């Protein structure tokens, strides 16, 4: 993302920071702020701004640490390593491994779906694939550390994490009930 010579990176960054969705977010904030001012009045606007700034200052140091953590984790857990780890397993052990690896997979959907694709190509069954997607989306550590812990607190994150632990197994087992198509028959476990 930030490769190449310095000036190129800087140009890219300015465009990335203020382009695209930045305008949409700014417009959303301006419109909701205006409606707030018109409907409730200036005092509501000021008090809302104050609590937003406080929340932002609370989040900022946590968020910075979480982003660094995610970037380092991506160096330590490359995509092909993760894929190899899951595809070697079969049966109910595969569900457990898929769940554990889903929790640890760093990055957004642009990282995890190529892994799912590579796993299927390597012969991993439907059930562990679905367990993996469920685990990554509900318990992925990166999202928890980046967003949930800074904004909702450690206690909330712990309760939600514990509540989500069985979900990959539930989805993976339900997925087994679906009939296989001819081209899926050679999978190890589905």
């Amino acid at each position, binding site marked *: 993302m930030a490769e190449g010579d310095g000036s190129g990176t800087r140009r890219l960054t300015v465009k990335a920071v203020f382009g695209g969705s930045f305008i949409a977010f700014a417009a959303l904030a301006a419109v909701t702020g205006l409606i707030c001012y018109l409907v409730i009045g200036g005092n509501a606007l000021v008090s809302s701004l104050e609590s937003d700034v406080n929340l932002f200052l609370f989040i900022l140091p946590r968020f910075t640490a979480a982003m*660094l953590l995610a970037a380092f984790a991506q160096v330590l857990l490359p995509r092909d390593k993760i894929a190899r780890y899951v595809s070697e397993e079969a049966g109910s052990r595969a569900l457990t491994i898929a769940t554990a690896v889903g929790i640890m997979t760093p990055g957004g959907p642009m990282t995890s779906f190529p892994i799912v694709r590579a796993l299927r190509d390597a012969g991993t069954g439907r059930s562990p694939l679905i367990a993996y997607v469920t685990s990554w989306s509900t318990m992925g550590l990166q999202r928890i550390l980046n967003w949930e812990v800074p904004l909702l607190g450690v206690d909330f994150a712990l309760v939600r994490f514990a509540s989500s632990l069985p979900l990959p197994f539930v989805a993976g087992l339900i997925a087994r009930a679906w009939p296989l198509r001819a081209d899926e028959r050679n999978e190890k476990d589905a």
Partner: protein
Amino acid sequence: MLDSAILLWIAAVVLGVIVWRRSFSAFRGALEAAGTQLLVVIPRVFLALLAAGFIGKLLPAETIGHSIGFESGWSGILIASAFGALMPSGPMVAFPIIVVLRLAGAGVPQVTAFLTAWAVFAWHRVLIYEVAMMGYRFAAIRMVSSLVLPIVSGAIATVLCLLTGMR
């Protein structure tokens, strides 16, 4: 309560040292990647927080607290699941909205169900990535297999809340 800032910084430093000792150029690359990410995400998060805060002032907090508060039980879990499944956004929008809902009195089990539904049904992500890379059939089977998940997580969270006294 554990201070999440200390926790996160300790973890970041530990991983950073491990990466540094393995390869300095990988370390520098990761720092640059994180820096670019921060520059892109932080202004958007700030604006999303502002918008969510304003929306929070406009929303009828008591109605929300009543319909998806802890006391709302199963009906609140179902309502929250439905809204979570319909929400078309990434974490940058979803989490500020959840903060507002929590402040308005939404309960832990209901917010858990909301987050589960949002995470597993995220239809913007399904369309952009899952269907493109895995095909309709995989996405459809996964989503049907996931229908009960928000309710399961909401139920477990209810039990955990009753045990720990969280609301």
